[in-house]
């Protein structure tokens, strides 16, 4: 099954790419979408095989310049293959509609772009060919089994996604800046990952993961810790961990929406995969401070991400920051698992790790729905700015319903899928402190619970804003009022992802068996089986207490039906009369009187003023005849990323100064270059002579 799946990935990606190039333009969107979905189907097959079966290894000697290409699939690879494949199927089907002729694009600052654009940039040949290649590159990463293969696949993934981020560079200046940030950050990350993995490979004398796994325990602690911190930085930056997240809220919103979904739901998860693979599997866990470091970074990421999301007014930027938030929650789970395992509390460590993996899958499902939904809104209106949206529930009922499913999952409310994994995470945290754990854990865990709680609360505020302001109420602009429902392929694509959300929300115990096999690949939590006893009700091994999402959902449906029946019996049975809303006696209603996303988030922005630091401009133009009469008031607010503004300019200044200094070495004099060559040769020969 794994063979079939991976061959399907390779064949569909390569032959499909050729097909996309040669087919005529009018069927290109159809071909490209189908090819992407086919590559995704291959990933799903391989993933299911990996989760079900024993280990699988294939070696192609000499395929890569520096060595062999080695692939291996175990349960941990399997869950990520399944995740990426699933997202790719949804995004592929969706892209058939999204890149079809017609629709609007976003121009600068989230407002509709010029409609005179010659065609959709996301439908161009380059963009359409790159999407299946990007998916295939992502699918090779979790299957890679040596350092070379891993790094090659990682870099292919980065390059293909960079091309896709730049798709709409002619439409908006912000795309070009996003591409630059993304290229720099992903390559800086590649350097740290490469250094970390090379340190490990050099230490054990072999570059296959199997050899590193066997030999890593004997490495000196300093080498192990150095390698761990290096890969944490690299994988963290890919995952959107604060403070290395700066590229994410720029690049994810600027890509075409199906690519945003692939990046935010799937690619970001490979950072998580890398961290689990290297930290938990290859290194086999480490001292407690590794876990505390990850836990701390997770807390900062979750809080900072959700705070920025709660203040954001650009729909896709909001979703990108919400990705940082959810990655933070996953990191809290992983960090907690590492800390508990280091304390010898393996059972609870297993529960925390299970929560992290399950939340990774849940986030992939609901973030796919949400980014695809944002894409539908964008295509229908050309708008990303929530302050100009509204009223879509009547113009686009199907899209609104799908987004509602995703938003319910993202706000971690029952019966949504995000609630399940957050519940498991909270259970792991509150049952972790035993008499054996020291004061550090006894202080860190309650703070982590507080962070998870505040994140959940602000997440609810964020998605009430995104959904309530964006989709309900009256349209706040002509573009929103003229929205049309999306093509059927787009609804089917997001419908697939929404269906997965519903299954994960109501029957999470179905994920129990595969999840146990994933944990069995990690030495620190092997054999803990946290979800083994779960059926309809979730029962966590080693933890008293149970929760059944299905019972809650059915209970709500039953209680709602009883309420409706009772009211029908007791109340006056007349139809509701439609009347103008109460306007304090003012008869005329204007959408400009409505609350916008900015005004909705104003109390939170004010409460968290010290963190968010919004920049506000208020221009009051007085009347020409009297300064007591006001002609007009203009209000502008921008919530900049303060961490970026504080941390990165000094860093960039240092890099810039270094570059200018280095320029003096190369002043164009041939004599100088000859001298460099001579000195280098001399020093090289001396070194060889001394060491030999």
């Amino acid at each position, binding site marked *: 099954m794994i063979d079939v799946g991976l061959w399907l990935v390779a064949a569909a990606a390569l032959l499909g790419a050729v097909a996309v190039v040669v087919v005529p333009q009018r069927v290109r969107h159809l071909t490209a979408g189908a090819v992407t979905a086919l590559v995704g189907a291959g990933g799903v097959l391989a993933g299911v095989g990996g989760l079900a079966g024993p280990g699988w290894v294939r070696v192609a000697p000499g395929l890569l310049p520096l060595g062999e290409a080695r692939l291996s699939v175990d349960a941990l690879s399997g869950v990520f293959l399944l995740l990426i494949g699933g997202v790719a199927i949804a995004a592929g089907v969706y892209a058939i509609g999204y890149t079809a002729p017609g629709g609007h694009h976003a121009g600068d600052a989230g407002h509709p772009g010029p409609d005179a654009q010659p065609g959709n940039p996301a439908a161009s040949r380059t963009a359409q060919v790159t999407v299946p290649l990007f998916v295939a590159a992502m699918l090779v990463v979790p299957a890679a089994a040596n350092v070379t293969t891993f790094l090659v696949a990682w870099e292919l993934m980065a390059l293909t996604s960079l091309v896709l981020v730049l798709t709409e560079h002619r439409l908006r200046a912000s795309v070009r800046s996003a591409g630059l940030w993304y290229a720099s950050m992903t390559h800086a990350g590649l350097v740290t990952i490469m250094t970390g993995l090379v340190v490990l490979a050099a230490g054990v004398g072999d570059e296959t993961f199997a050899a590193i796994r066997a030999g890593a325990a004997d490495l000196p602690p300093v080498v192990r810790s150095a390698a761990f911190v290096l890969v944490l930085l690299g994988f963290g930056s890919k995952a959107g961990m604060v403070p290395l997240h700066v590229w994410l809220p720029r690049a994810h919103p600027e890509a075409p929406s199906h690519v945003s979904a692939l990046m935010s739901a799937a690619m970001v998860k490979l950072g998580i995969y890398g961290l689990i693979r290297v930290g938990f599997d290859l290194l086999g866990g480490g001292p407690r401070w590794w876990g505390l470091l990850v836990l701390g970074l997770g807390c900062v990421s979750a809080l900072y991400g959700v705070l920025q999301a709660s203040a954001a007014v650009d729909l896709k930027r909001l979703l990108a920051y919400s990705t940082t938030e959810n990655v933070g929650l996953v990191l809290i789970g992983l960090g907690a698992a590492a800390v508990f395992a280091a304390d010898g509390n393996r059972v609870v460590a297993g529960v925390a790790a299970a929560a992290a993996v399950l939340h990774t899958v849940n986030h992939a499902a609901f973030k796919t729905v949400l980014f695809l939904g944002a894409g539908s809104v964008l295509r229908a209106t050309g708008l990303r700015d929530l302050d100009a949206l509204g009223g879509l529930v009547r113009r686009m009922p199907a899209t609104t319903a799908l987004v509602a499913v995703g938003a319910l999952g993202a706000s971690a409310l029952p019966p949504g899928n995000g609630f399940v994994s957050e519940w498991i995470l909270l259970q792991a945290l509150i049952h972790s402190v035993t008499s054996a754990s020291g004061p550090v854990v006894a202080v860190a865990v309650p703070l982590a619970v507080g962070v998870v709680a505040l994140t959940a609360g602000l997440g609810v505020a964020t998605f009430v804003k995104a959904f309530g302001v964006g989709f309900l109420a009256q349209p706040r602009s002509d573009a929103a009022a003229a929205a049309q429902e999306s093509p059927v392929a787009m609804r089917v694509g997001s419908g697939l992802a929404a269906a997965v959300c519903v299954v994960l929300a109501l029957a999470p115990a179905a994920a129990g068996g595969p999840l146990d096999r994933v944990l069995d690949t990690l030495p620190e939590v092997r054999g803990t089986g946290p979800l083994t006893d779960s059926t309809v009700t979730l029962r966590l091994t080693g933890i008293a207490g149970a929760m059944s999402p299905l019972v809650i959902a059915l209970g709500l449906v039953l209680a709602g039906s009883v309420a409706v029946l009772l009211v029908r019996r007791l109340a006056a049975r007349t139809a509701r009369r439609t009347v103008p809303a109460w306007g304090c006696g003012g008869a005329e209603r204007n959408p400009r009187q409505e609350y916008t996303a900015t005004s*909705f988030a104003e109390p939170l922005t004010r409460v968290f003023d010290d963190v968010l630091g919004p920049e506000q401009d208020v221009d009051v133009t007085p009347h020409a005849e009297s300064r007591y009469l006001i002609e007009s008031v203009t209000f502008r607010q921008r919530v900049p990323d303060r961490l970026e503004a504080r941390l990165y300019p000094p860093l960039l200044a240092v890099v810039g100064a270094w570059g200018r200094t280095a320029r003096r070495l190369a002043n164009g004099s041939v004599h100088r270059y000859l001298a460099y060559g001579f000195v280098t040769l001399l020093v090289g020969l001396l070194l060889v002579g001394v060491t030999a």
Partner: protein
Amino acid sequence: MSGPELVGAVVASIAQVALVVVGAPFLTGLMRQVRARMEGRVGPGVRQPARDLRKLLNKEAMRPEGSSVFFVAAPVVLMATTLLLAAVIPFISTVLPIPGADDLFAVVAVLMLGTVSLTLAALDTGTAFGGMGASREVTILALAEPTILLAIFALSVRVGSSDLTDIVEGTLASPTQVLLPASLLAAVAFVVVIIAETGRLPVDNPSTHLELTMIHEAMALEYSGRDLAMVELASAMRLTILLGLGVNLFLPWGVATSVAVLPMLLGIGAVVVKVAAAAALLAAFEVFVAKLRIFRVPELLAGSFLFALLAVSASFFLR
């Protein structure tokens, strides 16, 4: 669960729902009457809210122009969440038929779902008041969440479970636990949360008539007739449920631990007396405080968060 026990559990659950649905309007009436008497007014009597509900049920319902299905569905969702909670929280007996819904985290999340449905409906009306109420409500909701979850954490430490039944039975088994610092601190935090979640003074003024200061009332402004009746009844039920939850978490005496008739009757009597006393105390407290400015509410909630954090720490270090 054996056959007779299941029947008993179902009866207990239905009795709880009936008690909350019927008792909630009278509880609101009681609170208003206590306030009225303490402020030197005669007051309309405890039956007034029930009479209001009957009146509203027979009035015509209206919906604002351009509102969607979310406006119509919100009262039903709000009512469904409160009915579900009334059935699963151990008010009169710890033996209840529905497993897997009485986890405290789930209970809090279901309460939140009800609030969220009403905020979406408020936004759906497309009026400034609706937006204002929704915005303030979710702000308070978000800031109260850490306190609630940490208070749950503190309570769960002593029994090793966040299951409501386990917590109540654990407290019944060893009553001195209530006097532990952790319990007392958690109780203080929980009271602040109840005030914030139910929109009582000093966070929100339930009897205000000025739109600009409203939170909950601003969200319900566009409802009328049977929809308003549902929202009003559900809000009264939420207050009843939260007060009942509070008293049973910290003073669980009287709650039946079997399905025998006598303990259950005793359980009904005990919960009625305890909740009525708590409501009267809350009403009396409200006479002496004024509504806080909305931007002072975060300070109140931060203070309660500190209490909850201390409660958790105390449960580790002082036992």
